[in-house]
Every structure is written in structure tokens, then in C-alpha cells.
């Protein structure tokens, strides 16, 4: 990997030469390049050319006092290269990169909302996260933001919110914030002509909780429990990602028994998340029996989580320096028995998904996302793998015990809702194998080490393959017990842009099916 990085850096200095201000490595296999303002577009261009699967992971803003630092995290050659640009706080402006990489659209809108940076040339510079009645000059993630300044003034109901806009036979159907197809509070305005969807306008942020801001006023130890609450379903992924990023800042190595136990809980998380989604997909396409069966079979997975962690959903299992509980011998046999049973059930479901005619009618060729579009929109996880993009953080940049456990990365080339569901179905089977292997080869030794509460100054990037895709953390420490900045980019935030693409031109009855196949989690999106 390091050879690759040097090559990339060389290509970068060839292209933009003297405009590179500073280069430093974040972790051994990652690099961070500071460039002059204005050179970031060229730098991003160079990085995107390095790898066919390259895309943007996140845009992090950091308030440095006089300036705001924007960090473009580009995912290329199985690692993350960060481009760093400073913009002045007064009159913060920078050129948009959305035309280079359409997947940056939402990231730029988020940074614009939370840091007040104007992205010049952005195609749709509307608010994404903050409410419409939020005052103009208060930017929540700047350090000098004062809560008392936030006074919302009620707005007149805009045309957009009217349910029926009867112009030329086009009806505006609003899906959400309260809608049975969308049990989480987000809004999608669908312009519908008959049964065909013409246009989709997403709007998120209805339950934004400001967790990134809250993390700045809590200690690292408290933050573990805070980030677990970003998403209940994949809570262990958030905790693992946070902890391993902090461990990277500290330079701590976790005992290998803890690495294996983390792998087990991460995979259990994946199994129950995927089963939840597959059942939910059944509900969305009107196949209620599938929903009830799937959720019944999901229950034993939660019992296994309880055997391992003591809790069914929010595990509170992972901590900085290892895990909080050891796994007992009798629990291993219980988990193994449950997994063997589950494996049998999954082969039944696999047959069902492959053969059931009505299920296939509703999911085959529905919501097709081509490989080109998937790469352009920088989608992650099963959505990308369902479109034939071969990427998986577990393999590309192994964490926990994944470099010691053999497993397959599942990809399907169809790119439709069915392929995305099949990816998840196969991944469950693969996860069962991973857990069985991990339990069989569980190393002995301590399961955690004690770490100091104060983290030395530094910064690190962490990535975890959550059930919904790549989970991204950026943590900057200022040498105290409180982090300076915690940036979380959840997989759904990266995937949500693709919904616009796959819904447009489709049938209104396909909206739930294609939507659910993305496995959207708005609890994640609205951190």
C-alpha cells in the first residue's frame, strides 16, 4: 500500500507542483496533503484518476479560529487521501467540486449548512440539514456559534409543501416526513405524472441531533456511548469505528482477543441489520409473510448479541483499548448452535428470493443503478456492490481481525433492487462463516488494555464496513480529554443521493421497493 501512496503523491506533485503546501501522513497508510486555495479541484482530479473505483468519502470542516479548514477525503486505491484547504472565516467561499464528482453534492451542502462555507458553482445550493427558518448567520459547528442567537421565525407555507400542485397533470406527492412507507422522518417530494415519477427532491435533517457538536463537549469515554446512539441498528460499528480512530490517534494496539471479539459483534450487527432490512423489504412490496418470517428468525441473533455483550441492541461492548466483557465458553456453544440453525434458514430464504415469482416481479429491473452512476454518486456498501462495484472496507483496509479471517466480497452486476437484496442475503451467510471462524480461532489473552483518558494531540481517520456500507470517522484531538472535532459520515448519507437517480422515471409503486433496497437509515443520516 505504501508504494501506492508514494506514487499518488508523486502524481499529485507532478500535476500541481508548488501549490502543495504540506504533506503529512495520518496513519501509516494514509496521507494528508495541504494545498493552496483553488488548487483543490486539480488535486481532486488527479486523485480520482488514480483508481477506477475512486470517489469522495466525506468533506470535513474544522474551525481553526481565523480560518475554516476543509478536508476532502478522497477514497482511492483502497485508502483515503485527504486534501486540505483553508478558507477565511469571513466571506468563506470555495469552488465547488460537484461537477467533478457528483457524489460531493450532499457533502458540500452539509458543510455549507454547518460551517457557512459557500460553494461556488454548486448546482443546488439549498439547505439540506438546517430547517428553513434557521437564522442566516448562525453556523452550528463553528466554535463561536451561540445558541442564544438561534431564534426561529416562522415561515409562510411554501408552494413546495402544498400536497397538490395541479400544473399540467403533474401531481406533487410528498412522501414523508410522516408517511407509512417511510417510517423515519425525511421528506421526498415526488412529482408524479399518472403513475410515473418525474422528479424527486429529497430533504433531510428533520431529526438532526447535532451529535458531532455534542461530541466536542464530552470526554472520549463518554463519546463512545454517544456515538453508539447515532444508530441503534449498527451501534457496534459506530463504537468500533470511533474507538479504533481514537486508538490510532493514541498509537495504541488492541490485544488480538479483543480484535476477534470485535469482529464477532460487528458481524452479528451485520446479520441482524440485513435481516431487518430484508424483512422490511417484504413489507414494502406487500409480502407481509416474508416480513414476519424474517423478523422471527432475527430474534435469535439478538439473543446471541445478548450472550456476547449482555445487551440485545445497544451493545455498549466496545471501548477504547479493547472490549468490555469476555466471552465465556458456554456462550460460544450457544452462539454456534444458533448460527448453524440460522444458516439453514438462510438457504431457505435464498431459494425464496431466487425463485418466488411475485417477489421477482417487484424487484427485478426495479430501481436500476448502473455501475457508472454508482461510481459517480460515490455510493457505498451493498448498494455499490449490487451495482458491481467491488469494494469492501473489510478487505480493502482490514481492521479488527479481518486480515486473518478468510471471506468473500459479494457483488452482483444487475444493479437493481433484487441484486441489492441478494447482496445482503449472501452477506448474511458469509457473516455466519466469519463468526464461526472467529469463534473457532479465538486467541487467548487479555480482552482489553487500560488507556489514559487524555489523548495526545493529533488526528486520524477511521473506516469500518457497517451493514449499510463504509462508515467514516475523522477525529482531531487537541491534547485534552475532549476531542476538538469528531466528523461522522454515515453510509446512508452517501447513498441517499442515489435514490433520486433510481426513482426518477420509475413507477410510483416502485418507489418503496427501490427505496428500501438502499437500506436507508435516517437516524444515521441526521446525526
Amino acid at each position, binding site marked *: 500500500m505504501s508504494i501506492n501512496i508514494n506514487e499518488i503523491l508523486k502524481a499529485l506533485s507532478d500535476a500541481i507542483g508548488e501549490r502543495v503546501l504540506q504533506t503529512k501522513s495520518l496513519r501509516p497508510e494514509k496521507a494528508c496533503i495541504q494545498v493552496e486555495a483553488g488548487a483543490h479541484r486539480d488535486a481532486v482530479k488527479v486523485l480520482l484518476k488514480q483508481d477506477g473505483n475512486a470517489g469522495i468519502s466525506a468533506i470535513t470542516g474544522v474551525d481553526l479560529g481565523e480560518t475554516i479548514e476543509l478536508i476532502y477525503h478522497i477514497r482511492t486505491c483502497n485508502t483515503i487521501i485527504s486534501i486540505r484547504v483553508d478558507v477565511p472565516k469571513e466571506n468563506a467561499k470555495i469552488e465547488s467540486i460537484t461537477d467533478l464528482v457528483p457524489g460531493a453534492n450532499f457533502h458540500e451542502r452539509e458543510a455549507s449548512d454547518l460551517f457557512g462555507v459557500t460553494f461556488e458553482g454548486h448546482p443546488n445550493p439549498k439547505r439540506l440539514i438546517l430547517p428553513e427558518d434557521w437564522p442566516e448567520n448562525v453556523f452550528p459547528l463553528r466554535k463561536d456559534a451561540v445558541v442564544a442567537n438561534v431564534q426561529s421565525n416562522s415561515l409562510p407555507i411554501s408552494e413546495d409543501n402544498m*400536497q*397538490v400542485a395541479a400544473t399540467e397533470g403533474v*401531481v*406533487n*406527492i410528498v412522501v414523508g416526513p410522516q*408517511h*407509512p*412507507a417511510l417510517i423515519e422522518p425525511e421528506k421526498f417530494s415526488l412529482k408524479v405524472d399518472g*403513475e410515473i415519477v418525474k422528479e424527486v427532491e429529497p430533504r433531510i435533517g428533520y431529526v438532526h441531533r447535532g451529535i458531532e457538536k455534542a461530541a466536542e463537549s464530552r470526554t472520549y469515554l463518554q463519546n463512545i456511548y454517544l456515538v453508539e446512539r447515532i444508530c441503534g441498528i449498527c451501534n457496534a460499528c459506530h463504537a468500533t469505528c470511533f474507538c479504533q480512530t481514537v486508538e490510532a490517534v493514541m498509537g495504541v494496539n488492541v490485544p488480538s482477543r479483543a480484535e476477534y471479539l470485535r469482529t464477532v459483534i460487528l458481524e452479528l450487527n451485520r446479520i441482524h441489520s440485513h435481516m431487518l432490512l430484508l424483512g422490511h423489504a*417484504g*413489507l*414494502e*412490496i*406487500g*409480502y*407481509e*409473510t*416474508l*416480513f*414476519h*418470517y424474517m423478523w*422471527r428468525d432475527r430474534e435469535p441473533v439478538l439473543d446471541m448479541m445478548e450472550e456476547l455483550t449482555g445487551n440485545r441492541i445497544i451493545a455498549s461492548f466496545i471501548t477504547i483499548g479493547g472490549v468490555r466483557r469476555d466471552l465465556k465458553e458456554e456462550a460460544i456453544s450457544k452462539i454456534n448452535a444458533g448460527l448453524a440453525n440460522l444458516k439453514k434458514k438462510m438457504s431457505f430464504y435464498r431459494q425464496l428470493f431466487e425463485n*418466488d415469482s*411475485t*417477489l421477482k*416481479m*417487484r424487484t427485478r429491473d426495479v430501481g436500476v443503478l448502473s455501475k457508472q452512476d454508482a461510481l459517480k454518486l460515490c455510493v457505498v456498501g451493498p448498494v455499490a456492490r449490487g451495482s458491481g462495484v467491488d469494494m469492501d472496507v473489510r478487505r480493502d483496509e482490514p481492521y479488527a481481525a479481518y486480515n486473518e479471517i478468510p471471506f468473500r466480497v459479494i457483488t452482483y452486476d444487475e444493479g437493481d433492487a433484487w441484486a441489492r437484496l441478494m447482496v445482503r442475503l449472501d452477506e448474511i451467510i458469509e457473516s455466519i462463516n466469519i463468526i464461526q471462524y472467529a469463534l473457532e480461532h479465538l486467541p487467548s489473552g487479555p480482552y482489553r488494555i487500560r488507556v489514559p483518558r487524555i489523548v495526545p494531540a493529533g488526528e486520524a481517520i477511521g473506516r469500518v464496513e457497517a451493514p449499510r456500507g463504509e462508515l467514516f470517522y475523522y477525529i482531531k484531538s487537541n491534547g485534552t480529554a475532549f476531542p476538538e472535532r469528531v466528523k461522522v459520515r454515515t453510509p446512508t448519507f452517501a447513498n441517499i443521493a442515489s435514490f433520486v437517480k433510481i426513482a426518477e422515471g420509475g*413507477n*410510483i*409503486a*416502485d*418507489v*418503496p421497493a427501490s427505496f428500501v433496497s438502499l437500506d436507508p437509515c435516517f437516524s444515521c443520516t441526521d446525526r
Partner: protein
Amino acid sequence: MHRQVRGASKMGLDIAFILRVLVFPGFTFILLFTMFCDWVERKIEARMQNRMGPTYTGPLGVFQPLADCVKLLTKEDIVPFNVKEFAFKFAPILSFSIFVFSFVFLPIDGANIVFNSNFEGDLIIVLTLVSIANFFLFLSGWSSFNPYSAIGATRVLTQFLGYDIPLFILALAPAFLAKSLSFSVIAADQDVPFAFIIPWAFVLFIITLQAELEKDPFDVPHAETEIVGGYETEYTGRRLAFLKLAKDVQIVLGAAIAVELFLGGPYGPTFYGPSALWYTLWFTLKLLVVVALTEYLTCVFARLRIDQVLAVNWKVLLPFAFLSLAAAVGVGLWFNLLR
């Protein structure tokens, strides 16, 4: 060979007549039986999906549909702003009453509710009444002034265009075998239920019935994940209760039509006691079989899309309906030779 259709005597407006219309086998019986069928459906669906289903109200939860209905009757009745008030208020009640009225022409305890109400052609009248009642369901959504209701309502009509013709054609097959267009004669003519003589027509009829009853895989008019409640979205309180009851009665009526046409109606072996009781028993049992069958189909299928529903109706059901009618004509000629 033909069974005598009972109740040929003249009948005035006496107590027995009023009891017959209002209590048994008329309004009250149909209403209670509808609720019982609703419970059976819910129980079957729940057991197939590994759930309990209703358990609390009454033994095994059998009074749950009644409780639901009574609860709705006590709820606030809201007529939203801007709706077409007359249609909005009366469509549910009209659709409910037309479905109930259709039962008049079906022999339930060996005779019709009103004696001698059967006539040559009541099969066509009932099928037409069902279509009209469906139109009122459409109207209830259309008058709601709500995009979900409007889409649900148009789906009712679109789907109705698809299944109505195959349903009529399939209903003609037993009519041809019995050489009559009257339910009483068709039901009485089945020494061997037609379901065994022309099973293909029975199977197709049940599938078409699924579309008529808006059950999976054809329940697009109220696909709750797409269009909320469909045409029911804006309804509350007693109007919603009537809409729901109308749907439930429609399910029983649909099953009853299938029983009359293909399963020999109420007729079956009678033993000790009045034959009317035995006939009612056979009728209920056969009807429950059909209800269980439709509920089974509901559980094993996912919901189709409206265009797929239409494709199934026009490209599969309609040609097969014609084919099955042709085959039934062939069988009928041979069958009549035997008798």
C-alpha cells in the same frame, strides 16, 4: 334430477318474513357471519405468518372484528375541507348496502332470503351490482380531494376494468353447465360440484376473485406503503366503519358467489332435523373453505404493481377465461349426454 327450489308458496308481510329479512338468513346473519369470516381470515393470516392474531376479545378473539367496528362507530366523524360532500358521505353507505342487497339473490339456507326473488338472469344482476358497488368505492376516494385517495380510486377503476370481464366470462361456465342464469338453479343443479367437473374454471375464478376483492397479489388500491390508505385515507369514524364493512361484506359475497357457482351452493346431504339448518351449515362450511383459500393466496404472494396487475388480467386471465369457457362448453355437451 333437479332439486326442487324451496319456498314456492306465496308469502305476505308477516312476522316470519320480517324475521327472514332482518335476522336469519338476512341482514343480521350476514353481518355477523361477515365479522366471523373477518376473524377467520385474520386468524389464518396470523397463523401463516407465525403470529397469534386476535386473542383478547371473546374466546380466541372471535369478537375482535365486532369490537373494531363498534370502536370506529364511536369515533369522531370528520368531513374534510373541500371534499365533494354528498358523494363523500353517501358512497360508503351505498356501497355497503348494495353488497348486502346482492345477497337477496343467493340461496343461503336452501332458499333465497326473500322467497321467489330468484329469476332467470339474477346472476347477471348480482355481478352488475358488484360492479356498481365497486364504483361507489371509487367514488368515495375520488370525492376525498386527497392525492393518495385519488390514486387509490383510479387504481380501483383501472383494476376493475381488468378483472370484470374475465369474472363475467368465468361465471358463464357453470351457467352453461346448468343451462340457467339463475343462482338458485345453478346451485341446485350440482349433484357433483362444478369445481370437480371444470376445476380449471374454478381455479381461474378464485384468482380473478382475488383481484375483485383487492387481496394480494392484487391489493394495489390500498397499497399502504405507496398510497397510505388508498381511497380510505380521508375517512374516519362511522364512515370508515362502513367502508371497512363494505369491503368485508364484499369478501363474503365474492366467496358466496364462488360457492353458488362452483361448490353446489348450500346443498349437501341432510340428516336429522330441518333441512334449512343443514343447508346453512353446508353453505357456511363451503364459504369458509373459499375464504381460507383466498387468504392462503394472500399470504404467499407479494403485491404486484398496477401495470403488472393489468398485464396479468388482460394477457393471462382474459384469454384463459375464454379458453376455460370453451372447454366448459365441451365438457357440458359431454356431461349432458351422460345425464
